[in-house]
């Protein structure tokens, strides 16, 4: 099970350990944790609610993991994304990638995050002193995802 969409929090240390558990060919585990910040575009954020599209969410994350596995030689990939109401400091997302060498693991982990940011159907509703409002998509996320369309797939350190 490489993809989970859930309300519950997750255990980062256990997830990272599971990616190399009993797999002695794994030399590198790159991972990412995304957290709720208490500021957004200058406004104070008291909490946010993550809405998603059940069914499509899991499918889109599985597609992204599949694409990462096609692009790089990987031993394991794990994605967890939460939904529901979250407060500043809460974990939102985990991506962990295991491989023989660090170049592949880093590249694939960042790739999964960049694609997730533009392709997985989640939307954030932020609670600020000015009221609740939907977060706008960021252009920088589009450009982060777009560079994987052109960039060479192999990177130094592989």
């Amino acid at each position, binding site marked *: 099970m490489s993809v989970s969409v859930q309300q519950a929090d997750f255990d980062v240390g256990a997830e990272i350990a599971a990616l190399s558990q009993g797999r002695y060919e794994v030399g590198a585990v790159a991972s990412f944790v*995304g957290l709720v910040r208490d500021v957004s575009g200058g406004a104070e954020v008291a909490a946010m609610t*993550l*809405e*998603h*599209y059940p*069914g*499509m969410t899991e*499918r*889109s994350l599985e*597609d992204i993991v599949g694409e990462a596995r096609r692009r790089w030689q990987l031993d394991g990939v794990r994605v967890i*994304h939460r939904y529901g109401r979250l407060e500043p400091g809460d974990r*939102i*997302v985990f991506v962990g990638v295991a491989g023989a060498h660090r170049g592949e693991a880093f590249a694939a982990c960042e790739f999964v*995050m960049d694609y*997730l*940011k*533009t*392709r*997985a*159907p*989640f*939307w*954030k*509703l932020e609670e600020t002193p000015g009221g609740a409002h*939907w*977060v*706008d*998509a*960021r252009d920088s996320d589009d450009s982060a995802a777009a560079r994987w369309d052109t960039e060479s797939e192999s990177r130094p350190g592989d």
Partner: protein
Amino acid sequence: MNVKILYFASLRDAVGRAEESFVLPSGVATIGDLRAFLADRGDKWDALAEGRNVRAARNQRMAGPTDPVGPGDEIAFFPPVTGG
């Protein structure tokens, strides 16, 4: 020729519904056709008008305006995603 249409996030708030069952009129063959037809309802449906930043999915996969719409499809409209 029924399709299920879903609306999410700010777009759902704008059109005032999360879901509808919709009988495809003749001439509505693509996602783009469907969106234009819905926008033509006017008033709050303006949120789907051309120029608005709306994304679509067909059967739970991202879809473009030229992708076909067929009977039994699940079509979703929503703003650009903001997860992660």
